[in-house]
């Protein structure tokens, strides 16, 4: 059993007046791929934003351990940029690429908090190897890329901060099936190299295919959780998220 990396403990979050997360708890183990699935408005994105410090929980804690033997720290009250520095990189919904900047500039902003130029260069080359298309388009503006390429850019950019935990909000959004398949294979590779992944997906089939474990969120609560192959067989999940197949 892997050690726990992230432990979200009974989180309550409001967005303005709306009560979006009503006591959510979840765990992410070192080296896992964990998926959050659920309908629109279930609170998936809010969960991710709370972890990365963009939203503040009203109560509850988020314990994070940046490597196996480190102390657990509560990151629920510290600013977003410090959370990035601790090794959590969040790839936001809708990708959030900087469309007027070049592909290379986009990637370099990902390394904003890092200082060592040599390491950044090596990291950059590694990402160009993972996504050769980004290297080819290095000097093009990011806005001129196709949807799939933009998603690769967003993932590559998030990797530039050398995260221990990569958080992805709907990576498959608006992409064709073949591109999604490829993207998930790349994510699996990245995971094999030691990056833990927590992702939100509408595409539950894909998510359950690649994730080790998954949580189902409904109206701000976790209603089901378990290993993905078990969830994929669950009748309720099949009816609600897998199109009843």
């Amino acid at each position, binding site marked *: 059993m892997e050690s726990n990396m992230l432990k979200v403990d009974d989180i309550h979050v409001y967005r303005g007046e709306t009560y979006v997360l009503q006591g959510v708890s979840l765990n992410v183990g070192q080296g896992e791929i964990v998926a959050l699935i659920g309908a629109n408005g279930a609170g998936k994105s809010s969960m991710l934003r709370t972890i990365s410090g963009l939203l503040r929980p009203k109560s509850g804690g988020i314990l994070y351990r940046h490597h196996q033997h480190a102390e657990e720290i509560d990151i629920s009250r510290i600013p977003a*940029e410090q959370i990035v520095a601790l090794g959590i990189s969040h790839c936001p919904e809708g990708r959030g690429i900087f469309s*007027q*900047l070049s592909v290379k*500039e986009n990637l370099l902003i990902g390394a904003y908090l890092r200082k060592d130029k040599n390491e950044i260069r090596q990291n950059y080359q590694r990402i160009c190897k993972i996504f050769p298309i980004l290297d080819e388009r290095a000097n093009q503006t990011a806005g001129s890329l196709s949807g799939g390429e933009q998603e690769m850019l967003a993932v590559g950019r998030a990797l530039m901060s050398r995260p221990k935990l990569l958080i992805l909000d709907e990576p498959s959004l608006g992409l064709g099936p073949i591109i999604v398949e490829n993207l998930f294979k790349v994510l699996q590779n990245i995971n094999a190299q030691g990056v833990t992944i927590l992702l939100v997906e509408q595409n539950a089939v894909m998510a359950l295919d690649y994730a080790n474990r998954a949580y189902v969120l409904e109206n701000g609560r976790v209603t089901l959780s378990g290993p993905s192959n078990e969830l994929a067989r669950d009748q309720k999940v099949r009816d609600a998220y897998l199109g009843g197949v």
Partner: protein
Amino acid sequence: MNQSRNRLVFLALILLGIGFVALVRSTVNEYILSIINFVGIYIILAVSLNITNGFTGLFSLGHPGFMAIGGYVTAILTFPVSRKSMFLELPQWLANLEMPFFPASIIGGVCAAMMALVVGLPVLRLRGHYLAVATLGFLIIVQVLITNWDSVTRGPLGLNGLPAITNLWYVYPWVVVTVYVAWKIKFSSYGRSMLSIREDDMAAQCLGVNLFRTRVAALVIGAFFAGIAGGLWAHLVTAITPTSFSLILAFYIVVMVVVGGAGSISGAFIAAIIFSVLTEIFRPLEENLDVYGIGEIFTAAILILILIYRPQGLFGSREPGFLLTRDTQ
């Protein structure tokens, strides 16, 4: 190798500028010389607003307010002691103080920057239109304060008979410094973080950019140069009144940034030249026909056409290729 070629290009441009300054100072008449000085000041204003407005995407209309602060501070510090006592009721230490122009203008710039910090802390939590309205409010507050603070500013009469110190040997180095600083910022990691805030602030935050601190810095840096420009302006016109730095001026500077291309230093530079020369060209025409405002109408028309047909401005966010090394993409 590329880097050194780049340095040479910049050095050549700077020398060319010095040659230009020396040439015009010995050939053209006073009137044209003063226009060239104004063009230089507009370049400082447009390029510095570009750091705030173009790089970081803060739609600030407060630039003339910072100019006014810099202008008044510089003017009071350089005002001859003998005449200070005639016009103003200043505290003792200030009444007996007469400073050389250069340190006075630096202090003016620093005061403007500190004011930007004070204004920025509450206001930069606002976004988009709210920020524009809040900085507009700041501009009006500055004007009202200056108008009513008789003992220091002489109220609506303003300060006149300021020593005519500003000439191209003052303006040109400040143009070079402003452009240099803007350029260094733009092609640094810090500048990229500013541009990323403009493009998508949430994504920038996800990558570890501190939104608030970076926004405040962008406003403060822009305000410093606006303050310097205010000092230069005051000692070029040799008079300064509360109405010198109005919303119309804010409009002009914003137009320069938008037409040049938000984020493009070369664009702001060229647009500043075009628009300040244009207004001067229309001035004799306005006087002859006794119809004023032709320049403004023309400027507004160009702005509208640019927004329709080339919304990214002349240069977009970019710089012309011959100025770039491979390193700065």
